[in-house]
């Protein structure tokens, strides 16, 4: 069971809370990284909140329960906001952000986990 983005084509994004059967929309700006112990953002995780029941899914960059959707969400997030680690700025080309996310995926779950084209 998880809350994940099912459609990125329009803003706000369409989300599904699969086992609960909930659907709705979330503003991409509300999707945030988790915090490290020192209070900084952790670029390996993003949080999506169900707009219906307030359940919270913390997705790892590797994809967790929904690898294709989650990896795409990380790519879109880093493209729009840059990465809190400082390696990618919001003004950088989208391909740089995607490369950065792919590197994160490989580090977290190993090569072969990447599911975007």
């Amino acid at each position, binding site marked *: 069971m*998880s809350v*994940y983005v099912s459609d990125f084509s329009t803003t706000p994004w369409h989300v599904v809370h699969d086992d609960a059967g909930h659907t709705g929309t979330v503003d991409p700006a509300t999707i945030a990284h988790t915090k490290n112990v020192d209070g900084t953002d952790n670029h390996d*995780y993003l949080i999506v909140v169900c707009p219906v029941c307030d*359940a919270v899914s*913390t997705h790892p960059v590797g994809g*967790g329960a929904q690898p294709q959707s989650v990896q795409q969400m990380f790519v879109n997030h880093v493209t729009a906001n840059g990465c809190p680690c400082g390696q990618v700025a919001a003004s950088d080309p989208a391909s740089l952000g995607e490369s950065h996310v792919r590197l994160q995926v490989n580090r977290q779950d190993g090569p072969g986990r990447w599911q975007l084209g």
Partner: protein
Amino acid sequence: MAFAQVHPGDLIQSQNLNQVVNALNGTAGDGQPVLLVALNDPNNYALTVQNLDPTNCRALLVLKNDGTTLLSAGCNGVTLGSPLTLAAGAQIPNANLGPDVARANQLTNGGFEIWQRGNGPFTTNAVFGPDRWQLFVGASSSLSVSRDGSNQDAGSQYCAACTYTHAAASQLYSAIENFTPLRGQTVSLSIRVRANAANAARLFANDGVAASYSGYHSGNNAYSTLTLTITVSSTAIRLLMGVELDASCTAYLDNATLVVGSQPANYVPLHPADDLARCLRYYQTLAGTGYTYFLPGTAYSAGNAVFVWPLSGRMAVTPTLTTSAAATFANFSPTGTPVGPPTSIGAGSVTTATVQMNSTGGNGLTGGNGTMLLSNNASAFLIAEANP
């Protein structure tokens, strides 16, 4: 009729000789009617015997000195006596194994016994119903999958009940995590299927290169075993195996196996601990009613605490952690009472082995003290889900 002894000096009567000749010719009533097809045939066998009696075709019986059977051969098959000694290096190839010879099942939850997400009905495309079994609902079709404890196969506890209205082909399938070592190998899928419509339910396999299908269930609303044997492509990029529904029906699925080799295997249940352990590799949950103790932790201020969930075995990949709303949780105060709820709860970091969680914005805690994460009501849950 027994043969008559001919003693030294006896006159041999024609009937004595005819008994032998008739027996060899296969004449009923004169011993067992046996046709000696060949004797010491240099090109074939030293002895070939055929029993011509149409109702009694036992051909050969070899006895030990105590009268017990060493070897018998006839219409009911071949029986070997004891001790049975095979020559060194003798092998029974996979293709000659019976389906009741148990072999390692590559499927997780092949018996459809474990439903950690609930009993259903599950109706949404791409969701999981029974652990590791996922729905694909074709466009404009409807598929409802539920746990069923009334229509299961003999000896089973539960099956998957599928109520299906057809528009485009739909499936209930399992993705094989460990498909890479199966590239280039022959594998056989077997599932017990009961369907009430002909040409509605069949097995399918898809390795990302090609799709293969079994024949359809007859639609007689009785369980039968459907099987499908394929050679997985050497360039397979996935391995999905399950049941495809191609016409409206009610179908019950039970006792699935996927084994290496050309001979399908019957389902042999795992010990429940092993069955569940496989499922926990992909999905783990903690849930409770009021004040169920979930996780131990440490408060680091009056309102905030950190917890660690040591997962039950390593998961397949780093999981997604999903928690119910913060209001469904409570913390355990230094005075031994539930306090809270926190204003937010979620994961800090997640690995395949542990989940670190934070609750913030609560009250009644004391920094530096131990605490617990509790459910505040029956809606509380923690779920770790890893789908490779």
